[in-house]
């Protein structure tokens, strides 16, 4: 499903070369729930943006769903983002003054789906995240947890191959965070959805089946987590 080989990302900062990603190789299979973990500056955000086709690697190979991403044009990348990847961000990134339903419809609109089908699919996605009663509320009328649910519904609506969540609980209180983690776990268990969580928080990471740890642009460990935390288990630091 996701296959990377020696991914590199180099930024030029003045005279200095910054290697945000320095040779990352891994494979994530369909239906896995994986956490990419590391402190800030470890390169996990860079990795996420490359996996999400938001940015291109400086070198290395990236196969997504059998497609070689590094050779794609900008327009093709936009299509891949729209159809194969569902993003969930820390700050929700919903369109202001736009109803939940219309926010969820946005990826369908860009994918060329319109009319009743678009409406039905958006309603279904909102129903899946438990917000079928809030479809016409704008983000400012929703709580943080509800906004993140709308964002998850938006990520689900195109039935993407992967859900890519960047610190999805980072802006939420712990109780709401638990609800969101529950939702991810149920998407993974019930629907077999591939979920990739990017986080600095080992407690969040331990909700997944597999944890990839990054440091200074290198993968320092890639281990399966035999007993993922069930959402709602009190936070105990390692």
């Amino acid at each position, binding site marked *: 499903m996701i296959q990377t080989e020696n991914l590199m990302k180099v930024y030029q900062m003045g005279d200095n070369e910054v290697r945000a990603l320095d040779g990352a190789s891994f494979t994530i299979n369909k239906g896995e729930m994986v956490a990419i973990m590391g402190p800030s500056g470890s390169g996990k955000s860079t990795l996420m943006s490359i996996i999400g086709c938001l940015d291109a690697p400086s070198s290395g190979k990236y196969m997504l769903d059998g497609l070689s991403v590094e050779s794609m044009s900008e327009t093709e990348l*936009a299509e891949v983002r729209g159809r194969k990847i569902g993003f969930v961000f820390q700050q929700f*990134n919903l*369109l202001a003054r736009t109803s939940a339903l219309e926010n969820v419809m946005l990826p369908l609109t860009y994918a060329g789906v319109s009319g009743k089908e678009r409406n039905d699919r958006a309603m279904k996605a909102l129903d899946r995240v438990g917000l079928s009663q809030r479809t016409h509320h704008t983000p400012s009328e929703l709580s943080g947890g509800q906004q993140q649910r709308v964002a998850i519904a938006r990520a689900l609506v195109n039935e993407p191959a992967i859900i890519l969540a960047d610190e999805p609980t980072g802006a939420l209180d712990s109780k709401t965070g638990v609800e969101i983690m529950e939702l991810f776990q149920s998407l993974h268990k019930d629907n077999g959805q591939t979920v990739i969580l990017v986080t600095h928080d080992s407690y969040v990471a331990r909700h997944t089946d597999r944890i990839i740890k990054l440091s200074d642009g290198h993968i320092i460990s890639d281990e399966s987590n035999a007993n993922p935390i069930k959402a709602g288990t009190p936070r105990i630091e390692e």
Partner: protein
Amino acid sequence: MLFSENFKIAIRALRANKMRSVLTMLGIVIGVATVVALLSIGKGVTANITSSIQSNGSNLLTVSPGKQQTGPGGGGSQQASYLYYADYQLLQRSLVDNIAAIVPSYQSSYLVDHGNESFSVNVTGTTKEYQETNSYEVAEGRFISDGDNKAESRVAVLGAGTAKDLFGGLTAVGKTISIKGVKFEVVGVLEAKGSSGFGGSSDDAVFIPLETGYGKLFGSTATYNDKKIVNSISVSVANTEAMDTVSAQIEFLIRRAHKLTSSDELDFNVLSQSDLLSTLTSVTQTLTIFLGAIAGISLLVGGIGIMNIMLVSVTERTKEIGLRKAVGATKNQILTQFLIETVTLSLLGGIIGILFGIGLALLVTLSGAFTAVITADSILLAFTFALGIGVFFGLYPAYRAANLTPMVALRYE
């Protein structure tokens, strides 16, 4: 993606910032309104002047004193030059063919009284033919006759405006007015003719027999070296094809009378109405272009306003652009969205501006100064200009928005 979807997105973005959209649009509204109004007013003035000149007849030659200006300050020592009553008599005697009428006139401004009313009015001494060559209609009484001139009668004919000023709505014919203290009997009142197109009204006037003027009113100001002078001699030509011939004859006759050699500059002008018309048309055309250019500048400023706002909007909505790209928007879709936003702003501004401009032009017409002429091409011009400005000034911000790397845009704070 459908155009209508993009359009909806653009409209929503504009509505989200109503105040800002309105203010941005205002620049275009004012620009377009000025273009439409000024062009209409310019066209109206031109039409007005043209028709007022044509109403005097296109077959009129006007002889007036003065050297033909060869250029600014090209005259050197400008000698006063005069046209004499004798010149009129000469023309009267010598010109035979194709002549409908020859009309001398001497004009001066005097205080005209009746009872307690007193006005400074242009008093024109002339002959009976003046009425026809200048297209006046008599409302009451009669115009000056040949007999009045022969007898040097102290009779006066009032323009509609002057009659109203001096007598209100009351009958003027038969009453006595005094011009510079000299008593005149009012024998006629003219119909209103309206504005002459040169600021003054041709209805504020008093006409008296020219001979009476020389004998009893004008005094020494109307003579030069003991010769009676006139301000102008109008020659109405019966056949328009003979205009050039008659004009040449007049030039020849007066040149000889003024004892000018063939190398001397003329000390008088012979102008036809069509000469006057073409001069004035070129003046008003220049004026219209000038006004249009000013309006164009305000449109340009409005356009820059749009660009400014769109750039701010792109910066402000960087995150939104990033998100749109993350959920699958292509570069072209982002470009289209922002272009539609600017074009919508400028088109809406253009339409409102056109309505305002038409309103302004109608207001000018209603005020009675003159009739503004609203033409389809001035509206089309303003509309195209507004659209062009929208596309032109929207392109750069839209291009910037579309080219943002999604990751960079998403991380933008």
